[in-house]
């Protein structure tokens, strides 16, 4: 059974059908790339899966149970974490705190425990801190050391993207949704992140779905590529197959005059 599946998933925005009867299966431990032209419904798919936008029809199942109608926080708790296309951090919070927020669903202590500094509260805080620092250490020394306490908005663009991934990973997800993780990065950083995404999967076993525009990344990282256009899946398979698929070329470049 697939780790994650959607069945006949549909979402309309007014008259626009952003996702149109989408069936998608992702197996445990896979790295799947979702590509497609602008407006194909890729980010909408992520918004539906993470619960930030309610779906109109169809079903989303994760580990065999439906997650339709759950709050985003509940979906994160089940094990689906995401990053955002336009980086959305908590700018005023420190780098460490940003990541610590993601541990919210894995911790329990409430106001009373915080006020009375209960031993369980202290232990939990310490663990949360360690978790956050560990998650950040995954990116080498870039986000560690003195950077722990700098506010998130002082980071460079590439580091913000890294911090977003660290934040998502700190919630111990089984499925990670990365929305254009390399956007705004230079070629070297892109290359590095490509390797990192693989390492992430190999070391933690997390299943990854990513939206990507950079075909080198798609080629380098994905085991399977899903192509969306007008909210429908128009092709699926290994990169080489998809790249030579006529419908995909048509979706990206338009119908050529001769084939018409």
């Amino acid at each position: 059974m697939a780790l994650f599946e959607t069945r006949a998933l549909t979402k309309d925005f007014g008259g626009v059908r952003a996702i149109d009867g989408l069936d998608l299966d992702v197996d445990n431990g896979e790295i799947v790339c979702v590509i497609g032209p602008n407006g194909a419904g890729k980010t909408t798919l992520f918004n539906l899966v993470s619960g930030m936008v309610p779906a109109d029809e169809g079903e989303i199942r994760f580990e065999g149970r439906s997650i339709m109608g759950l709050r985003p926080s509940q979906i994160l708790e089940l094990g689906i974490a995401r990053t955002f296309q336009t980086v959305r951090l908590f700018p005023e919070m420190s780098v460490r705190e940003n990541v610590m927020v993601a541990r919210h669903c894995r911790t329990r202590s409430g106001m009373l425990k915080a006020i009375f500094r209960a031993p369980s509260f202290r232990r939990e805080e310490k663990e949360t801190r360690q978790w956050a620092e560990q998650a950040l250490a995954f990116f080498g020394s870039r986000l560690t050391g003195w950077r722990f306490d700098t506010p998130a908005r002082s980071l460079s663009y590439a580091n913000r993207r890294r911090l977003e991934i660290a934040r998502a990973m700190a919630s111990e997800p089984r499925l990670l949704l990365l929305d254009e993780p390399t956007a705004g990065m230079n070629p070297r950083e892109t290359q590095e992140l490509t390797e990192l995404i693989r390492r992430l999967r190999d070391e933690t076993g997390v299943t990854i779905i990513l939206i990507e525009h950079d075909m080198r990344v798609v080629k380098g990282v994905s085991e399977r590529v899903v192509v969306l256009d007008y909210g429908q899946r128009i092709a699926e398979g290994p990169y080489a197959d998809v790249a030579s698929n006529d419908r995909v070329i048509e979706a990206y470049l338009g119908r050529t005059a001769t084939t018409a």
Partner: protein
Amino acid sequence: MAEPTVAVEAPVAAGGELLPARQVDLWRAVRLGLVGGLTAVFVSANGMVLAFSKRALLGGVTLGSLLLVAVPLLVGYLAGRPPPVLQGFATPRPGWRNLAGGLLAGLLSGVVMAVFVTLIATFDVRRVFINVTPELVRAAPRLLTFGLELGAGGLVLVLTLNAMLGAVAGTLQLLGERWRRAVFAVALWVLAFAMLQPFVVQVLRGIQAELRIWTAPLAEFLYEPSGALSVPGAVAVAVVAFGVDALLTREGRRPVRTRLEVLPERSRRLLRLAVLAGLLFVLGLLPQVLGPFLSEVLNIAGIFLLMALGLNIVVGLAGLLDLGYVAFFAVGAYVTALLTSPQSSLGVGWIFWAAVPFVVLAAAVSGLVVGTPVLRMRGDYLAIVTLGFGEIARLLFLSDWLKPTFGGAQGIIRVRDITVGPIEIGGPQAFFYAIFCFVLLATYVTYALQGSRVGRAWIAMREDEAVAEAMGVNIVTAKLSAFIAGAMLAGFGGALFATKIGSVFPHSFSVIVSITVLVVIIVGGMASVPGVVLAALVLVGLPELLREFAEYRFLIYGALLIFMMQQRPEGFIPSRRRAQELHEEEVPQDAWLRTQTTMQQEAAPAGDGRSETS
């Protein structure tokens, strides 16, 4: 510790050639002068000058006349200030332009004032402007012309005085940064001592009475019988102020924080204990030293502080703009009154402490009641709806429907005092300790929550609600818990208020209480506890202390709010992060420029105004 910064290519010609400096803008001086003149007219026409002229400050100078001369000083100073140095431009050399700018602005404000003075001297405008009294120009004190008759040099005096003061203030810009600061420090100290005369005198007398240190003669030395600062007193204050300022800004002085950081952990802990002990000692003696009246002032400020700390959680940490905060204050007060007054509808007459759990419970429930319907609202909508809730609460307590329980407009009287064992905490001096304990508790709670899982959830929610939810923060719980925590602190405030006054009436819980508390946290600095403490003392305590301010309180609040939003949106004592965020753009540019200018004019005594953190 910082990484080496990457040099940014500056948009200037090769060779580091700088564009000519931008000079003092004379049109800006004209604008400032006119605005200043209008401000002076405004404060004269609304009666502030007359009301404030009853407080003598120094010699013949009253607070009212200070208000008049402050206008040319201020606009002159601003007009003489060179425009901010942009990247790639040279730093302007100080010179006659600063003086001319100040002179022009001062003169223009003088002209506006002179026109106004002539106008009210020739026509009687009192039918429309009732505060334009004869005392301003026509009759004896002639406040606006400083005692002179209009024909006998009054107009000339207004004009020359304004122009001169403007020029003097503009000349201040010629001084180096350090000297300018020293002038400001001295002026502020003298002004503070002159304004706070009742406070200073009481403290000096109180210290003598309590500690048998010979301080009362000092009060007689500093102040004349009229309440004004004596000339030797003013000189003494100025000298001390100058000395302290010189000591604090001397070359190579490291900030206290960094000096503390190099100390070993042991001595740091010892120092902390010593400071705490000293603080407790001072606070323990404070009500005795201050006497009943000042203690009462402090108590009022303390109750508002308690509320401000609560609202700080709701607005500052969780980012939920609540304008109906007074509702929780009212709930706390009414529950206390119901349970402790023998004459209430319940008539149980419990002691205060027995009522406290119910206050907490009732406040939490009311937080839930207000919080639940507004869960889906943000920003402006939330503000409007909570504003409505605040009014609903007041009207409910006032209503005929609930009159059997809450007594309607008659309220509930004979609320019992707080008792500690057999001792009744009656007078304001004893009451100070009770308030102090609650404030301490609230401060602790704020700090404890701020750095906890719940606090992080609140801050994340303030930053980006949708992302916080996507990152696992249940927004419903987070919002409700913020409302409940805030409501509890306001409830405590209400409980203390009820016992302090000894009775509760619905009219004490109008919307203006919510607004005042909000102003306190905005002016003090959102999410900053020291800022809120200072703002509560200044904004609530000071108007109680200086009664002539009371009438113009909300005018001053309004002006202060506008000023803060324009110049210091992060508040007087901001939480460190916020300050960085709101002034972010200035730093990289200035940092680049400073490397350029320091290389060129090393001789210039440029004191490093702002020390930025990378």
